[in-house]
């Protein structure tokens, strides 16, 4: 099996424009930031969440509470995973009850990660509403889940991988498509 880079679908400035737009859309849709809290899914979604929080702060001068979710213990495929991923800490330092939760992930694919995240959030309390923001929607949903805010729609094939790279982790902001080739 080889993985080769097929192309860059978003560069640094496009990532920034998309996140700024999402920040504005969140404010527009919710008529301000009053009941909002932001929760990012590890790993990458948490950093995107911080940036969206910052863009919202610049526009509305409000500090929205921010949390981080690690969904490892809510996955539906753990028995088929050979090695155990390191579990990161889930940090929700506020009460989600009656709040509007903006859930943030980097790539939306099958929807299984989001399903796990929804279950985990609800274990912390009963929010009024959960909205989903993703930087990339690559299609191929296996569950009835749809995003409220999308950075970019990227049609993909099953043998492709979409990788979001961000400065805090990868040293660069961009979205890359890779192709997996199975040798016969």
């Amino acid at each position, binding site marked *: 099996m080889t993985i080769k880079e097929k192309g860059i679908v978003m560069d640094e400035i496009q990532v920034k424009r998309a996140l700024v737009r999402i920040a504005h859309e969140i404010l527009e849709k919710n008529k301000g930031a009053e009941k909002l809290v932001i929760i990012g899914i590890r790993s990458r979604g948490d950093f995107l969440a911080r940036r969206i929080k910052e863009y919202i702060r610049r526009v509305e001068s409000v500090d929205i509470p921010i949390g981080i979710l690690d969904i490892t*213990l*809510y996955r539906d495929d*753990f028995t088929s*995973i050979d090695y155990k991923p*390191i*579990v990161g*800490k*889930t940090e929700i330092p506020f009460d989600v009850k009656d709040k509007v939760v903006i859930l943030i992930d980097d790539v939306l694919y099958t929807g299984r990660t989001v399903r796990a995240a929804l279950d985990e959030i609800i*274990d912390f309390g009963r929010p009024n509403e959960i909205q989903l923001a993703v930087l990339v929607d690559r299609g191929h949903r296996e569950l009835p889940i749809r995003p409220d805010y999308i950075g970019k729609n990227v049609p993909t094939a099953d043998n492709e991988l979409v990788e979001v790279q961000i400065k805090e982790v990868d040293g660069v902001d961009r979205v890359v498509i890779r192709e997996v080739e199975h040798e016969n």
Partner: protein
Amino acid sequence: MKIKRKDLLGIEELSKEEIETILETSGSLKEISERAIRKVPYLRGKTVVNLFFEPSTRTLASFSLAEKRLSADSFNLSSSSSSVLKGETLLDTARNLEAMRIDFVVVRHSLPGAPHFIADRLEASVINAGDGTHEHPTQALLDLLSLKEKFGTLEGKKVVIVGDIVNSRVARSNIWGLTKMGADVTVCGPPTLMPYGIEEMGVEVSFELRKAIEGRDVIYVLRIQKERQMGGMLPSIREYIELYGITPERLKDAKEDVIIMHPGPINRGIELDPRVADGKHSIILGQVTNGVAVRMAILYLLSGGQSGEVSEA
């Protein structure tokens, strides 16, 4: 670092990297016990048997809570209420349990090596919850987690373990764990309760408490195990208290910010004065809190494990 083991039998066979993975995972899982709903679905549909051939309160409660907080189905069997009384062997008991499809056996037994014996013969994961005077790995791991939280790193920290060293599985597991993590360990106790040749485990030996606690960052107090005193090892409990009991007066010779630990259950007024057990140096209840997190981490890291790839979701 991947953990590729089926079983957790002791600290001796763990690498420093494996211990670090366990502690890091424990740190992440600790938060679950602080939630409104203290439960995650990870081990849904998995079955755990807690097979306890020796009495236990803390360890059994801690394992049970760890299992429940990961949503496993679990039940307890103890020697006083099972077929052991009718003469069934350990292996037969374990095999019969496995025939009923279980995933984990948590075992405490008075014979050193009992968990190893069944681990070799079962497909289920076996976790040692204390085997005789040999090892008590989850206790050592929760102690290491408590120290890591306190100091950040154990490298170069000075720890003295005080009391009945020869009968203590807690001491043995902790010596392996602490030395692997780079701590400097001294053991201190009466000569009759000090095993011959223990220096070979990489520790210093002291028979004089006053000198042993001087300059130490941690005093780890062991329980005087009345059930394992086969007579005559101590002239009297009063003499033990006089020479090795940890009292506020004794602590005048210790560092001002020394930490006091104890694996429980405490014999108040014997190895540990109540004023010290409940005082500002004690992190004993913090150890108990960490026990649940460490046992959750062990169940997590040993679970599942069929071949496959991480799916992108």
